[in-house]
């Protein structure tokens, strides 16, 4: 019988890495290879329960199920019967049902820790019900034009904007020299006055 691919989450937040999340992820991949078990490893952010890190989660039909290996040496124990199902006796049970999480009302942090923070492919569907329509791209827009037009453009956006288009950000000018002496070295290149 062909087994389906199981999604397994091991955080890569600094707080998780500091307690061995990388080692746990490597051990998990090695153990799955040894057992011939197919997984999709997702390096998500932390759910915020730092005292449970490294918090390994397994996606089950009943939701994500939390497991807590003490370290890489404990990874083989994660394959005990029931661990990869939402069995109440194994691990922490459904992560969302952990009282500290369940009691919280998360707004801006609602998506924190659920997905790989560097994956646009998984971020977009999750954001569909949140930001205003057209948040990602309007017709004929690119990320840089939208960023520039928002008025909070950063350095990268300024560099990508045509020099003639102007913008709301302040322009920098080189400070006037207070010394009349002839400079002994080449004058540094003037700071850009246009974006």
């Amino acid at each position, binding site marked *: 019988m062909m087994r389906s691919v199981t999604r397994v989450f091991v955080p*890569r*937040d*600094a*707080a998780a*890495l*500091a*307690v061995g999340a990388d080692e746990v992820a490597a051990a998990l991949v090695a153990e799955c290879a040894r057992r011939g078990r197919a997984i999709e490893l997702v390096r998500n952010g932390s759910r915020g329960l*730092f*005292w449970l*890190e490294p918090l390994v989660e397994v996606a089950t039909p009943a939701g994500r199920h939390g497991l807590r290996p003490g370290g890489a040496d404990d990874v083989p124990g994660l394959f005990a019967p029931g661990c990869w199902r939402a069995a109440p006796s194994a691990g922490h049970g459904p992560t969302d049902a952990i009282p500290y999480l369940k009691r919280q009302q998360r707004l801006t942090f609602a998506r924190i820790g659920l997905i790989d923070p560097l994956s646009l492919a998984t971020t977009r569907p999750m954001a569909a019900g949140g930001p205003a329509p057209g948040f990602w791209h309007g017709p004929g827009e690119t990320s840089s034009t939208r960023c520039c037009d928002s008025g909070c453009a950063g*350095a990268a956006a*300024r*560099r990508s904007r045509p020099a003639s288009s102007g913008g709301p950000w*302040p322009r*920098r000018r*080189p*400070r006037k020299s207070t010394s009349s002496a002839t400079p002994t*070295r080449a004058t*540094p*290149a003037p*700071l*850009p006055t246009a974006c």
Partner: protein
Amino acid sequence: LTRHPKGGKLALASQKEEPALSTPASSHPAPDPIATVRAIVAAHAAIPGPLLPVLHAVQDALGCIPPTVVGEIAQGLNLSRAEVHGVISYYAHFRQAPPGQHVVQVCQAEACKACGADALMAQAQALLACAPHTTRADGAVTLEPVYCLGLCASSPALMVNDRLHARVTPQRLGQIVATLGVPA
């Protein structure tokens, strides 16, 4: 916790692997400090408030910010030497002399203090034969107190060569130090 101005740098989301043991620094030609600084300043010329990013980049490239390059940074950013020196000397993160081959930073802020940071520092001092705030005479290790690595919920914490370690027990500290291969 807020970051103490004399504290270490903030915890990084992505950590570097610890370098291989006893990597001789002489295996790579030393970069020309002035040329390195000029390139870094040029790369940051277009951003507002470039001084701190420049100082970080210089330290990352050279290992420290030697006094000999302060004038070059000041010239390149159109600042006075005093302004640049003031920022370098204000933040303990910026070094004016090269550190040891390994840098061990033990958090001494409130949460870690409450969870045994003093004992951890004393143990590190004994294991490494190095006093806090100093680099060993053989250049093998630098031991520093830092004031918040951002891991208060997982105290006590320390950082070794830019790699974070949390919930550090005396036994774990012994293992970490052993991997450094620092002679006693």
